[in-house]
Protein backbone atom coordinates (compact mmCIF):
# COMPACT_ATOMS: atom_id res chain seq x y z
CA UNK A 1 0.00 0.00 0.00
CA UNK A 2 1.06 3.55 -0.63
CA UNK A 3 1.90 5.42 2.59
CA UNK A 4 1.40 8.85 1.08
CA UNK A 5 -0.22 9.67 -2.22
CA UNK A 6 -0.53 13.30 -3.31
CA UNK A 7 -1.83 14.36 -6.68
CA UNK A 8 -1.95 17.90 -8.01
CA UNK A 9 -1.46 19.30 -4.53
CA UNK A 10 -1.47 23.09 -4.47
CA UNK A 11 -1.43 25.43 -1.53
CA UNK A 12 -1.11 29.13 -0.97
CA UNK A 13 -0.55 31.56 1.81
CA UNK A 14 -2.56 34.73 1.91
CA UNK A 15 -1.55 37.74 3.90
CA UNK A 16 -3.38 41.02 4.06
CA UNK A 17 -0.40 42.94 2.80
CA UNK A 18 1.01 40.97 -0.07
CA UNK A 19 -2.08 39.09 -1.23
CA UNK A 20 -1.87 35.43 -2.14
CA UNK A 21 1.35 33.60 -2.89
CA UNK A 22 1.51 30.01 -4.05
CA UNK A 23 3.74 27.81 -1.90
CA UNK A 24 2.93 24.49 -3.57
CA UNK A 25 2.24 24.21 -7.28
CA UNK A 26 0.55 21.01 -8.33
CA UNK A 27 2.85 18.68 -6.47
CA UNK A 28 2.85 14.94 -7.04
CA UNK A 29 4.31 12.73 -4.32
CA UNK A 30 4.19 9.00 -3.65
CA UNK A 31 5.84 7.48 -0.61
CA UNK A 32 5.93 3.70 -0.27
CA UNK A 33 5.19 1.95 2.97
CA UNK A 34 8.36 1.32 4.94
CA UNK A 35 10.68 3.69 3.14
CA UNK A 36 12.37 6.84 4.33
CA UNK A 37 11.62 9.56 1.85
CA UNK A 38 13.45 12.86 1.87
CA UNK A 39 12.40 16.34 0.83
CA UNK A 40 15.20 18.78 0.27
CA UNK A 41 15.33 22.33 -0.95
CA UNK A 42 16.12 25.90 0.10
CA UNK A 43 14.01 27.65 2.71
CA UNK A 44 10.69 28.79 1.31
CA UNK A 45 10.49 26.01 -1.28
CA UNK A 46 7.33 24.61 0.30
CA UNK A 47 8.73 21.45 1.86
CA UNK A 48 7.56 22.32 5.36
CA UNK A 49 4.13 23.32 4.10
CA UNK A 50 3.76 19.94 2.43
CA UNK A 51 4.58 18.28 5.72
CA UNK A 52 2.13 20.45 7.63
CA UNK A 53 -0.65 19.61 5.18
CA UNK A 54 -0.06 15.92 5.82
CA UNK A 55 -0.12 16.62 9.55
CA UNK A 56 -3.39 18.55 9.27
CA UNK A 57 -1.79 21.76 10.50
CA UNK A 58 -2.16 23.67 7.26
CA UNK A 59 -5.67 23.63 5.86
CA UNK A 60 -5.56 25.84 2.80
CA UNK A 61 -4.85 23.48 -0.06
CA UNK A 62 -6.39 21.88 -3.15
CA UNK A 63 -5.82 18.54 -4.76
CA UNK A 64 -5.93 14.91 -3.74
CA UNK A 65 -4.10 13.61 -0.71
CA UNK A 66 -4.37 10.25 0.97
CA UNK A 67 -2.41 8.64 3.78
CA UNK A 68 -2.53 4.84 3.93
CA UNK A 69 -5.67 4.93 1.81
CA UNK A 70 -7.40 7.47 4.03
CA UNK A 71 -8.42 10.50 1.99
CA UNK A 72 -7.81 13.94 3.46
CA UNK A 73 -10.09 16.93 2.98
CA UNK A 74 -8.72 20.48 3.31
CA UNK A 75 -11.38 21.61 5.78
CA UNK A 76 -11.87 18.29 7.52
CA UNK A 77 -8.78 16.43 8.62
CA UNK A 78 -9.69 12.93 9.87
CA UNK A 79 -7.77 13.51 13.10
CA UNK A 80 -9.30 10.65 15.07
CA UNK A 81 -8.73 8.13 12.32
CA UNK A 82 -5.13 9.25 11.88
CA UNK A 83 -4.10 9.62 15.55
CA UNK A 84 -2.12 6.41 15.53
CA UNK A 85 -1.12 6.78 11.88
CA UNK A 86 0.58 10.15 11.51
CA UNK A 87 2.73 11.94 14.04
CA UNK A 88 5.34 14.63 13.66
CA UNK A 89 8.69 15.71 15.10
CA UNK A 90 9.27 19.44 14.80
CA UNK A 91 12.37 21.39 13.94
CA UNK A 92 13.05 23.32 17.08
CA UNK A 93 12.97 21.25 20.27
CA UNK A 94 12.95 24.53 22.19
CA UNK A 95 9.59 25.46 20.69
CA UNK A 96 7.89 22.10 20.38
CA UNK A 97 7.69 21.26 24.09
CA UNK A 98 5.30 23.17 26.34
CA UNK A 99 7.52 25.36 28.55
CA UNK A 100 5.40 24.76 31.64
CA UNK A 101 4.81 21.03 31.36
CA UNK A 102 7.17 18.48 32.85
CA UNK A 103 8.31 15.59 30.67
CA UNK A 104 6.08 13.24 32.62
CA UNK A 105 3.03 15.39 32.07
CA UNK A 106 3.79 15.93 28.38
CA UNK A 107 4.02 12.19 27.78
CA UNK A 108 1.25 10.98 30.08
CA UNK A 109 -1.49 13.31 28.90
CA UNK A 110 -1.78 11.90 25.34
CA UNK A 111 -1.84 8.36 26.74
CA UNK A 112 -4.64 9.21 29.15
CA UNK A 113 -6.66 11.24 26.66
CA UNK A 114 -6.58 8.34 24.23
CA UNK A 115 -7.44 5.77 26.93
CA UNK A 116 -4.33 3.71 26.44
CA UNK A 117 -4.05 1.00 29.11
CA UNK A 118 -1.20 1.07 31.62
CA UNK A 119 -0.05 4.62 30.86
CA UNK A 120 2.72 4.55 33.48
CA UNK A 121 4.33 1.49 31.92
CA UNK A 122 4.01 3.00 28.44
CA UNK A 123 5.63 6.20 29.67
CA UNK A 124 8.62 4.30 31.03
CA UNK A 125 8.93 2.41 27.80
CA UNK A 126 8.70 5.55 25.71
CA UNK A 127 11.57 7.10 27.67
CA UNK A 128 13.55 3.89 27.43
CA UNK A 129 12.97 3.77 23.66
CA UNK A 130 14.66 7.13 23.18
CA UNK A 131 17.45 6.39 25.65
CA UNK A 132 16.41 8.70 28.47
CA UNK A 133 16.52 7.71 32.15
CA UNK A 134 13.18 7.49 34.01
CA UNK A 135 14.32 10.28 36.34
CA UNK A 136 13.94 12.80 33.53
CA UNK A 137 10.18 12.59 34.02
CA UNK A 138 10.26 15.44 36.53
CA UNK A 139 12.28 17.80 34.36
CA UNK A 140 10.93 20.83 32.54
CA UNK A 141 12.13 21.74 29.03
CA UNK A 142 14.39 24.55 30.22
CA UNK A 143 16.23 22.05 32.44
CA UNK A 144 17.26 19.84 29.52
CA UNK A 145 19.80 20.04 26.70
CA UNK A 146 18.69 20.38 23.09
CA UNK A 147 19.37 16.72 22.38
CA UNK A 148 17.36 15.59 25.40
CA UNK A 149 14.46 17.79 24.35
CA UNK A 150 14.45 16.36 20.87
CA UNK A 151 14.48 12.86 22.37
CA UNK A 152 11.44 13.78 24.44
CA UNK A 153 9.75 15.16 21.32
CA UNK A 154 10.46 11.89 19.50
CA UNK A 155 9.19 9.85 22.45
CA UNK A 156 6.00 11.92 22.39
CA UNK A 157 5.52 11.41 18.66
CA UNK A 158 5.88 7.66 19.11
CA UNK A 159 3.44 7.35 22.05
CA UNK A 160 0.53 6.32 19.85
CA UNK A 161 2.72 4.07 17.67
CA UNK A 162 2.28 5.91 14.38
CA UNK A 163 3.00 4.11 11.14
CA UNK A 164 4.08 7.34 9.44
CA UNK A 165 6.49 9.73 11.12
CA UNK A 166 6.86 13.23 9.68
CA UNK A 167 10.21 14.81 10.47
CA UNK A 168 10.52 18.56 9.95
CA UNK A 169 14.26 19.37 10.06
CA UNK A 170 14.59 17.29 13.22
CA UNK A 171 18.28 17.97 13.72
CA UNK A 172 18.93 21.39 12.23
CA UNK A 173 18.84 23.06 15.64
CA UNK A 174 21.29 20.56 17.15
CA UNK A 175 25.06 20.15 17.28
CA UNK A 176 26.62 17.65 14.85
CA UNK A 177 27.49 15.14 17.52
CA UNK A 178 23.94 15.30 18.90
CA UNK A 179 22.60 15.14 15.36
CA UNK A 180 24.45 11.85 14.87
CA UNK A 181 22.83 10.43 18.01
CA UNK A 182 19.35 11.54 16.98
CA UNK A 183 19.68 10.21 13.43
CA UNK A 184 20.89 6.84 14.77
CA UNK A 185 17.98 6.79 17.18
CA UNK A 186 15.47 7.51 14.41
CA UNK A 187 16.83 4.67 12.31
CA UNK A 188 16.67 2.26 15.25
CA UNK A 189 13.10 3.21 16.07
CA UNK A 190 12.07 3.00 12.45
CA UNK A 191 13.29 -0.59 12.31
CA UNK A 192 11.77 -1.46 15.69
CA UNK A 193 8.30 -0.10 14.96
CA UNK A 194 8.16 -0.61 11.18
CA UNK A 195 7.58 3.00 10.38
CA UNK A 196 7.52 4.98 7.18
CA UNK A 197 9.36 8.28 7.50
CA UNK A 198 9.08 11.51 5.55
CA UNK A 199 12.11 13.64 6.31
CA UNK A 200 12.39 17.31 5.45
CA UNK A 201 15.84 18.86 5.60
CA UNK A 202 17.96 21.47 3.89
CA UNK A 203 21.10 19.46 4.70
CA UNK A 204 22.11 17.24 1.81
CA UNK A 205 24.26 15.09 4.10
CA UNK A 206 21.34 14.27 6.37
CA UNK A 207 19.08 13.38 3.43
CA UNK A 208 21.76 11.26 1.78
CA UNK A 209 22.43 9.42 5.03
CA UNK A 210 18.81 8.72 5.92
CA UNK A 211 16.74 8.32 2.80
CA UNK A 212 15.91 5.55 0.35
CA UNK A 213 14.56 8.10 -2.08
CA UNK A 214 14.33 11.86 -2.02
CA UNK A 215 12.81 14.71 -3.96
CA UNK A 216 14.41 18.08 -4.57
CA UNK A 217 11.92 20.90 -4.24
CA UNK A 218 12.24 24.30 -5.80
CA UNK A 219 9.73 27.15 -5.69
CA UNK A 220 6.86 24.94 -4.61
CA UNK A 221 7.37 22.22 -7.20
CA UNK A 222 9.20 18.89 -7.38
CA UNK A 223 12.35 19.60 -9.37
CA UNK A 224 14.03 16.20 -9.31
CA UNK A 225 13.56 12.73 -7.89
CA UNK A 226 16.69 11.14 -6.46
CA UNK A 227 17.02 7.38 -6.13
CA UNK A 228 19.44 5.68 -3.78
CA UNK A 229 22.29 5.53 -6.31
CA UNK A 230 22.03 9.25 -6.94
CA UNK A 231 21.70 9.97 -3.23
CA UNK A 232 24.94 8.14 -2.48
CA UNK A 233 26.88 10.84 -4.29
CA UNK A 234 24.43 13.70 -3.66
CA UNK A 235 25.56 14.52 -0.14
CA UNK A 236 29.20 14.84 -1.13
CA UNK A 237 31.81 13.60 1.25
Amino acid at each position, binding site marked *: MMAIDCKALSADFSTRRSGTTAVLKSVQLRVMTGETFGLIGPSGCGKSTLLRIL*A*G*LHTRWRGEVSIFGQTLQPDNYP*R*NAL*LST*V*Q*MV*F*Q*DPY*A*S*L*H*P*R*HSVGRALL*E*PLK*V*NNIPEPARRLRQALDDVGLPPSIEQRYP*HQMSGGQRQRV*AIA*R*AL*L*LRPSLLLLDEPTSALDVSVQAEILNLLNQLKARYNMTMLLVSHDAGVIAHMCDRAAVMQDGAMAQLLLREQLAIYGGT
Partner: protein
Amino acid sequence: MNLSAQLFTLIDFAPRLRRGLRSPAATIGASVLLIVIIVAAFAPWLAPSDPLRQDIALRLRPPGAGHWLGTDNLGRDILSRLIYGARPTLGIAALVMAAAAPIGLLIGIVAGYVGGWTERVLMRLTDIVLAFPQLVLALAFAGLLGAGTFNGALAVALTIWPSYARLARTETLSIRDSDYLAAARMLGIRSSRLLWGHVLPICLPFAHVRVALDMAATILSLSSLGFLGLGVQPPTPEWGAMVADGSKVIFDQWWVAAVPGAAILIICVAFNLLADGLRDLGDPRHG
Protein backbone atom coordinates in the same frame (compact mmCIF):
# COMPACT_ATOMS: atom_id res chain seq x y z
CA MET B 1 -10.37 18.37 44.52
CA ASN B 2 -8.97 17.51 41.16
CA LEU B 3 -9.53 21.06 40.04
CA SER B 4 -7.71 22.58 42.97
CA ALA B 5 -4.86 20.12 42.59
CA GLN B 6 -4.54 21.10 38.97
CA LEU B 7 -4.63 24.78 39.84
CA PHE B 8 -1.92 24.19 42.37
CA THR B 9 0.39 22.56 39.89
CA LEU B 10 -0.34 25.37 37.45
CA ILE B 11 0.87 27.93 39.89
CA ASP B 12 3.65 25.62 41.14
CA PHE B 13 3.90 27.49 44.34
CA ALA B 14 7.03 26.32 46.12
CA PRO B 15 9.68 27.14 43.50
CA ARG B 16 7.93 30.40 42.83
CA LEU B 17 8.13 31.31 46.50
CA ARG B 18 11.78 30.38 46.67
CA ARG B 19 12.57 32.51 43.65
CA GLY B 20 10.30 35.23 45.00
CA LEU B 21 12.51 35.64 48.05
CA ARG B 22 15.35 36.57 45.72
CA SER B 23 13.45 39.62 44.50
CA PRO B 24 13.59 42.29 47.21
CA ALA B 25 10.61 44.22 45.81
CA ALA B 26 8.38 41.15 45.86
CA THR B 27 9.58 40.20 49.33
CA ILE B 28 8.83 43.63 50.83
CA GLY B 29 5.45 43.83 49.11
CA ALA B 30 4.49 40.32 50.18
CA SER B 31 5.58 40.87 53.79
CA VAL B 32 3.54 44.07 54.12
CA LEU B 33 0.51 42.27 52.71
CA LEU B 34 1.05 39.32 55.00
CA ILE B 35 1.17 41.62 58.03
CA VAL B 36 -2.03 43.37 56.94
CA ILE B 37 -3.78 40.04 56.37
CA ILE B 38 -2.70 38.77 59.80
CA VAL B 39 -3.87 42.00 61.41
CA ALA B 40 -7.23 41.70 59.63
CA ALA B 41 -7.61 38.07 60.66
CA PHE B 42 -6.90 38.75 64.33
CA ALA B 43 -8.77 42.06 64.45
CA PRO B 44 -10.87 41.24 67.58
CA TRP B 45 -7.72 40.51 69.58
CA LEU B 46 -5.60 43.33 68.20
CA ALA B 47 -8.07 46.20 68.15
CA PRO B 48 -7.96 48.24 71.37
CA SER B 49 -11.72 48.80 71.36
CA ASP B 50 -15.00 48.12 69.55
CA PRO B 51 -14.89 49.88 66.17
CA LEU B 52 -18.57 50.72 66.38
CA ARG B 53 -18.68 52.10 69.91
CA GLN B 54 -19.53 55.78 69.80
CA ASP B 55 -18.61 58.26 72.43
CA ILE B 56 -19.70 61.76 71.51
CA ALA B 57 -17.77 63.23 74.39
CA LEU B 58 -14.52 62.00 72.87
CA ARG B 59 -15.21 62.98 69.23
CA LEU B 60 -12.39 64.16 66.95
CA ARG B 61 -9.64 63.61 69.45
CA PRO B 62 -6.11 63.95 68.03
CA PRO B 63 -3.80 60.92 68.20
CA GLY B 64 -2.66 60.44 71.78
CA ALA B 65 -2.46 58.11 74.75
CA GLY B 66 -6.07 56.96 74.96
CA HIS B 67 -6.61 56.64 71.22
CA TRP B 68 -3.34 56.11 69.40
CA LEU B 69 -4.65 57.32 66.09
CA GLY B 70 -7.34 59.60 67.44
CA THR B 71 -11.12 59.38 67.11
CA ASP B 72 -13.54 60.26 64.34
CA ASN B 73 -16.56 62.55 64.32
CA LEU B 74 -18.67 60.05 66.27
CA GLY B 75 -15.93 59.41 68.80
CA ARG B 76 -15.03 55.97 67.45
CA ASP B 77 -11.45 54.77 67.84
CA ILE B 78 -9.75 55.19 64.44
CA LEU B 79 -7.10 52.51 65.08
CA SER B 80 -9.80 49.93 65.81
CA ARG B 81 -11.77 50.98 62.75
CA LEU B 82 -8.62 50.80 60.64
CA ILE B 83 -7.88 47.26 61.87
CA TYR B 84 -11.43 46.04 61.36
CA GLY B 85 -11.65 47.97 58.08
CA ALA B 86 -8.84 45.91 56.57
CA ARG B 87 -11.28 42.99 56.39
CA PRO B 88 -13.89 44.37 53.98
CA THR B 89 -11.32 46.43 52.09
CA LEU B 90 -9.03 43.50 51.28
CA GLY B 91 -11.83 40.94 51.15
CA ILE B 92 -13.81 42.86 48.58
CA ALA B 93 -10.75 43.64 46.50
CA ALA B 94 -9.93 39.92 46.44
CA LEU B 95 -13.54 39.13 45.55
CA VAL B 96 -13.39 41.57 42.65
CA MET B 97 -10.23 39.93 41.33
CA ALA B 98 -11.64 36.44 41.79
CA ALA B 99 -14.59 37.47 39.64
CA ALA B 100 -12.87 39.64 37.05
CA ALA B 101 -9.67 37.73 36.24
CA PRO B 102 -11.27 34.37 35.34
CA ILE B 103 -13.99 36.05 33.22
CA GLY B 104 -11.39 38.10 31.38
CA LEU B 105 -9.03 35.16 30.87
CA LEU B 106 -11.83 32.95 29.59
CA ILE B 107 -13.08 35.53 27.10
CA GLY B 108 -9.59 36.42 25.94
CA ILE B 109 -8.39 32.83 25.53
CA VAL B 110 -11.51 31.74 23.66
CA ALA B 111 -11.36 34.81 21.42
CA GLY B 112 -7.67 34.35 20.70
CA TYR B 113 -7.84 30.61 20.11
CA VAL B 114 -11.09 30.27 18.16
CA GLY B 115 -10.63 33.41 16.07
CA GLY B 116 -13.05 34.41 13.33
CA TRP B 117 -16.44 35.84 14.25
CA THR B 118 -16.25 34.67 17.85
CA GLU B 119 -13.13 36.72 18.29
CA ARG B 120 -14.62 39.79 16.64
CA VAL B 121 -17.75 39.77 18.76
CA LEU B 122 -15.93 39.12 22.03
CA MET B 123 -13.22 41.66 21.41
CA ARG B 124 -15.64 44.41 20.30
CA LEU B 125 -17.58 43.81 23.52
CA THR B 126 -14.32 44.11 25.42
CA ASP B 127 -13.44 47.33 23.61
CA ILE B 128 -16.83 48.83 24.39
CA VAL B 129 -16.42 48.20 28.10
CA LEU B 130 -12.83 49.40 27.94
CA ALA B 131 -13.88 52.63 26.22
CA PHE B 132 -15.89 53.88 29.22
CA PRO B 133 -14.11 55.60 32.09
CA GLN B 134 -13.83 52.88 34.69
CA LEU B 135 -15.27 54.75 37.64
CA VAL B 136 -18.22 56.13 35.72
CA LEU B 137 -19.09 52.65 34.52
CA ALA B 138 -18.70 51.21 38.02
CA LEU B 139 -20.98 53.94 39.32
CA ALA B 140 -23.57 53.12 36.69
CA PHE B 141 -23.46 49.41 37.50
CA ALA B 142 -23.55 50.08 41.24
CA GLY B 143 -26.51 52.40 40.76
CA LEU B 144 -28.25 49.77 38.68
CA LEU B 145 -27.54 46.93 41.09
CA GLY B 146 -28.29 48.96 44.20
CA ALA B 147 -25.98 49.95 47.01
CA GLY B 148 -24.27 47.28 49.06
CA THR B 149 -20.98 45.52 49.59
CA PHE B 150 -21.45 42.70 47.14
CA ASN B 151 -23.00 44.85 44.44
CA GLY B 152 -20.17 47.33 44.74
CA ALA B 153 -17.66 44.57 44.22
CA LEU B 154 -19.59 43.22 41.26
CA ALA B 155 -19.78 46.69 39.71
CA VAL B 156 -16.01 47.12 39.89
CA ALA B 157 -15.43 43.58 38.62
CA LEU B 158 -17.59 44.31 35.58
CA THR B 159 -15.34 47.20 34.68
CA ILE B 160 -11.94 45.54 34.95
CA TRP B 161 -12.28 42.19 33.20
CA PRO B 162 -11.58 43.68 29.74
CA SER B 163 -7.92 44.30 30.52
CA TYR B 164 -7.56 40.57 31.31
CA ALA B 165 -9.37 39.65 28.14
CA ARG B 166 -7.04 41.77 26.00
CA LEU B 167 -3.99 40.38 27.75
CA ALA B 168 -5.13 36.76 27.43
CA ARG B 169 -6.01 37.23 23.77
CA THR B 170 -2.61 38.70 22.93
CA GLU B 171 -0.83 35.86 24.70
CA THR B 172 -3.07 33.24 23.12
CA LEU B 173 -2.54 34.67 19.64
CA SER B 174 1.21 34.56 20.13
CA ILE B 175 1.16 30.82 20.87
CA ARG B 176 -1.80 29.72 18.76
CA ASP B 177 0.41 28.50 15.94
CA SER B 178 3.20 27.26 18.20
CA ASP B 179 4.71 23.85 17.62
CA TYR B 180 3.80 22.58 21.07
CA LEU B 181 0.11 23.28 20.57
CA ALA B 182 0.31 21.67 17.13
CA ALA B 183 1.92 18.61 18.71
CA ALA B 184 -0.78 18.47 21.39
CA ARG B 185 -3.52 18.65 18.75
CA MET B 186 -1.86 15.90 16.76
CA LEU B 187 -1.98 13.69 19.84
CA GLY B 188 -5.71 14.16 20.25
CA ILE B 189 -5.69 16.83 22.96
CA ARG B 190 -8.35 19.35 22.07
CA SER B 191 -11.00 21.92 23.07
CA SER B 192 -11.32 22.67 26.77
CA ARG B 193 -8.47 20.35 27.70
CA LEU B 194 -6.14 22.20 25.37
CA LEU B 195 -7.30 25.63 26.51
CA TRP B 196 -7.21 24.81 30.23
CA GLY B 197 -4.07 22.71 30.36
CA HIS B 198 -1.96 24.22 27.59
CA VAL B 199 -3.02 27.78 26.79
CA LEU B 200 -3.99 28.98 30.27
CA PRO B 201 -0.60 28.22 31.90
CA ILE B 202 1.03 30.51 29.35
CA CYS B 203 -1.35 33.37 30.17
CA LEU B 204 -1.29 32.94 33.96
CA PRO B 205 2.06 34.56 34.80
CA PHE B 206 0.99 37.71 33.01
CA ALA B 207 -2.36 37.59 34.76
CA HIS B 208 -0.65 37.28 38.17
CA VAL B 209 1.25 40.48 37.55
CA ARG B 210 -1.86 42.20 36.30
CA VAL B 211 -3.86 41.13 39.37
CA ALA B 212 -1.24 42.52 41.69
CA LEU B 213 -1.18 45.80 39.78
CA ASP B 214 -4.96 46.02 39.57
CA MET B 215 -5.46 45.30 43.26
CA ALA B 216 -4.24 48.78 44.10
CA ALA B 217 -6.51 50.40 41.54
CA THR B 218 -9.41 48.26 42.70
CA ILE B 219 -9.04 49.29 46.32
CA LEU B 220 -9.08 52.90 45.15
CA SER B 221 -12.19 52.30 43.00
CA LEU B 222 -13.93 50.57 45.87
CA SER B 223 -12.95 53.43 48.14
CA SER B 224 -14.39 55.87 45.64
CA LEU B 225 -17.63 53.92 45.54
CA GLY B 226 -17.64 53.82 49.33
CA PHE B 227 -16.91 57.55 49.34
CA LEU B 228 -20.03 58.11 47.23
CA GLY B 229 -22.07 55.83 49.45
CA LEU B 230 -22.45 53.04 46.89
CA GLY B 231 -20.06 50.53 48.40
CA VAL B 232 -19.91 49.25 51.95
CA GLN B 233 -22.73 50.66 54.05
CA PRO B 234 -22.14 52.53 57.30
CA PRO B 235 -21.41 51.91 60.09
CA THR B 236 -19.19 49.03 58.85
CA PRO B 237 -15.63 50.35 58.89
CA GLU B 238 -14.11 50.47 55.40
CA TRP B 239 -11.06 52.50 54.47
CA GLY B 240 -12.64 54.35 51.56
CA ALA B 241 -15.69 55.28 53.61
CA MET B 242 -13.42 56.39 56.45
CA VAL B 243 -11.58 58.77 54.14
CA ALA B 244 -14.96 60.10 52.98
CA ASP B 245 -16.02 60.74 56.57
CA GLY B 246 -12.76 62.38 57.43
CA SER B 247 -12.78 64.69 54.43
CA LYS B 248 -15.52 66.79 56.05
CA VAL B 249 -13.13 67.84 58.76
CA ILE B 250 -9.89 67.60 56.86
CA PHE B 251 -8.71 71.14 57.59
CA ASP B 252 -9.12 70.99 61.34
CA GLN B 253 -8.81 67.30 62.18
CA TRP B 254 -6.63 66.04 59.32
CA TRP B 255 -5.83 62.65 60.90
CA VAL B 256 -9.38 61.36 60.51
CA ALA B 257 -8.91 61.21 56.72
CA ALA B 258 -5.13 60.89 56.66
CA VAL B 259 -4.88 57.66 58.65
CA PRO B 260 -7.09 55.47 56.39
CA GLY B 261 -5.67 57.33 53.39
CA ALA B 262 -2.17 56.34 54.42
CA ALA B 263 -3.34 52.74 54.90
CA ILE B 264 -4.68 52.67 51.33
CA LEU B 265 -1.46 54.19 50.09
CA ILE B 266 0.69 51.60 51.87
CA ILE B 267 -1.36 48.68 50.63
CA CYS B 268 -1.26 50.04 47.07
CA VAL B 269 2.51 50.40 47.21
CA ALA B 270 2.79 46.87 48.61
CA PHE B 271 0.73 45.46 45.75
CA ASN B 272 2.73 47.40 43.19
CA LEU B 273 6.02 46.15 44.63
CA LEU B 274 4.69 42.63 44.52
CA ALA B 275 3.61 43.11 40.91
CA ASP B 276 7.04 44.46 40.00
CA GLY B 277 8.68 41.48 41.62
CA LEU B 278 6.34 39.04 39.93
CA ARG B 279 7.03 40.62 36.56
CA ASP B 280 10.77 40.18 37.08
CA LEU B 281 10.18 36.56 38.02
CA GLY B 282 7.93 35.97 35.03
CA ASP B 283 10.78 37.08 32.81
CA PRO B 284 12.24 33.91 31.28
CA ARG B 285 15.77 35.17 31.81
CA HIS B 286 15.25 34.64 35.51
CA GLY B 287 14.90 31.00 34.61
